[in-house]
């Protein structure tokens, strides 16, 4: 057993073997799901609370389905509309929920580092479903599983991550994960959306799609995060699409068998041409969503195993 984490707060502190363990388990779940096989309810008797301090549809639904398929009791709390409005601090909210004795806490928060702050105060397993611009570990894991299934391996690939890197927690988690697995990572985007110091992360930085996509095995598009921008990052959406939006012509610079990915939700016509997104020969976007459930099942199951071990040791 090579997964020793108490929480899943990010990819940065995971060992490559832990990532492999997670992905192998997730792949087994993905196959079982496709075969409509029974999972034997490993999370039966456990309570999973989804706390989303930021609006989410797909991630929250994915975590909920993953939990239910493994037999957990799942509760959703939309925190945007709740106690924060009454002035309660994040830590107090965490302590309140902790007193209800949940086993798995899935948290999304608009501030970087907030999920770790909360995890330090509770004695259940915490999964980071996205904290500010910091990390979104299950997204990187589902991307990795999708790549591994499509390409047959998860190392020595040329992977281009394109677009709004600056505001993207998905990009940061992916850079950690794909870097640990020894891939060649390229970041492509306008300089206003490439974070300061990114060139020191062990990646190659490009300001031109044609150049950056040359010979790429994987083209990972990011959503332009309009809601996180306070002005003057790009001149207009049409110029952005012209220079950095993925269309057939730009994709032609990548390898002929390159796959196209997007974490969703997509802005069609802003960062990606609709026909590329829907091209079943190139786009693995739907498979990403499918792998999302499998990865979250695996992550929650592994954390629950560790949680039970800790509790048994505490009881002995």
């Amino acid at each position, binding site marked *: 057993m090579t997964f020793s984490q108490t929480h899943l707060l990010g990819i940065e502190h995971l060992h490559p073997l832990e990532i492999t363990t997670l992905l192998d388990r997730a792949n087994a779940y993905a196959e079982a799901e496709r075969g409509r096989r029974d999972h034997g309810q490993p999370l039966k008797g456990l309570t999973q609370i989804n706390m989303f301090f930021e609006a989410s549809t797909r991630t929250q639904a994915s975590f909920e389905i993953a939990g239910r398929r493994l037999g957990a009791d799942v509760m959703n709390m939309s925190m945007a509309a709740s106690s924060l409005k009454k002035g309660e601090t994040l830590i107090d909210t965490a302590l309140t929920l902790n007193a209800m004795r949940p086993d798995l806490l899935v948290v999304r928060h608009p*501030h*970087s*580092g907030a999920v770790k*702050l909360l995890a330090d105060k509770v004695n259940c397993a915490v999964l980071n479903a996205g904290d500010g611009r910091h990390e979104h570990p299950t997204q990187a894991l589902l991307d990795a599983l999708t790549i591994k299934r499509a390409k047959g391996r998860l190392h020595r690939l040329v992977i281009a991550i394109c677009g709004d890197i600056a505001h993207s927690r998905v990009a*940061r988690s992916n850079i950690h994960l794909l870097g640990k697995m020894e891939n060649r990572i390229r970041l492509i985007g306008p300089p206003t959306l490439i*974070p*300061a*110091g990114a060139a020191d992360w062990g990646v190659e930085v490009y300001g031109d799609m044609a150049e950056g996509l040359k010979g790429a095995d994987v083209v990972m598009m990011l959503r332009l995060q309009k809601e996180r921008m306070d002005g003057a990052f790009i001149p207009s959406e049409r110029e952005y699409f012209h220079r950095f939006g993925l269309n057939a012509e730009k994709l032609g610079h990548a390898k002929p068998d390159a796959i196209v990915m997007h974490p969703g939700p997509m802005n069609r016509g802003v960062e990606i041409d609709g026909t590329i997104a829907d091209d079943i020969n190139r786009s693995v976007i739907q498979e990403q969503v499918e792998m999302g459930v499998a990865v979250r099942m695996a992550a929650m199951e592994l954390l629950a195993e560790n949680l039970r071990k800790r509790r048994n040791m505490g009881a002995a």
Partner: protein
Amino acid sequence: MTNALLRNARLIDPEAGTEGLGWLRIEGGRIAETGLGPRAGGMDCGGACLAPGIVDIGVKVGEPGERHKESFRTAGRAAAAGGVTTMVTRPDTATPIDTPEVLEFVTRRAGQDADVKVRPMAALTKGRAGREMTEIGFLMDAGAIAFSDGDAVCADARVLSRCMTYARSLGALIIGHPQDPVLSSGAAVTSGKFASLKGLPAVSPMAERMGLERDLALVEMTGVRYHADQITTAAALPALARAKAAGLDVTAGISIHHLTLNAFDVGDYRTFFKVKPPLRDEDDRMAMVEALRTGMIDILCSMHTPQDEESKRLPFEAAASGAVGLETLLPAALRLYHAEALSLPELFRAMALNPARRLGLEQGRLAVGAPADLVLFDPDVPYVLDRFTLRSKSKNTPFDGQRMQGQVLRTWVDGNLVHDRNAKTSA
């Protein structure tokens, strides 16, 4: 007891830049006589260091308005325990110190409760809002020693130029916070590979140079006496050097945190390391240590900023800025001494002599006739800092749990013993 003889002490004289084993005699609260070598009688200092008490520019006390964070009593005790004999207090309190009436309240409260000398600063603009100047003349009459809006940078250059012109006519000292207010708005850390990986809102170190260049241009235009509260980046140094070479009446300071910590210390979002301006890269830190040694940076201070537990137990972006420093300024500064980056006379030049001179105060020296504001410390004694042992009401120190070396043994203000480490009374 304002008469005393202290012998067998390592005298740290920042004025002469020397140190040597000797003795010092206090009479009537002033230094009456000093000399090198042995002498009989009086108190044996056991070879510990005797230096002028620290003059700390930029101490925040929570009165009026936030006494739960720090009162004059607790700040005074912390200062005495840290070898700080003069606190120059900041006007950025919950109720800004922007009228003579509020200033008189502060002076009265300080006189009642503080164990050390207190010299208050006043706000430069009403409410620190950067729109109308305060009654600089009346405030000087009431004892304001300098004028500053703290970290609220006056964005309107026309307002600031008028404040400076008016201040110049009265000979007032203005203390600025060099930072471009737009570029730095919302920032929690210094931009770079670390900040970007952690996903925190960041400001380029260039914002400091931009703020400084703007201020220095206005200083040149108005001829005002100007002190930059904290210069923390190498990119700002050439502008400072040019201004000094051109003969402008300009000095610059830095906080101890920027000299002993760097941006990586934030680690996994540790909010006690959130200060203003944010901690810088190691290259900048080393450049600033060198700038302090050469005297380009004149003044080293604690930037004592008490924050309660609640305001720090938040996500990093939302947490309050600032760190307490009265008690840790000297032990942290001794890190630079132990690292052989700065000598003790150099440190006390920056912590005592220069700030006193800049403010026109007679302390900060070991000279005959100067007030006997003194600190006796052992520079070598090692310990691990526990923040709950601090005398400050707020315990937000970034040095919690860290190994420190050097401890204050005794502190005197005007020859009166205000701190004795071996005394049985607990503070």
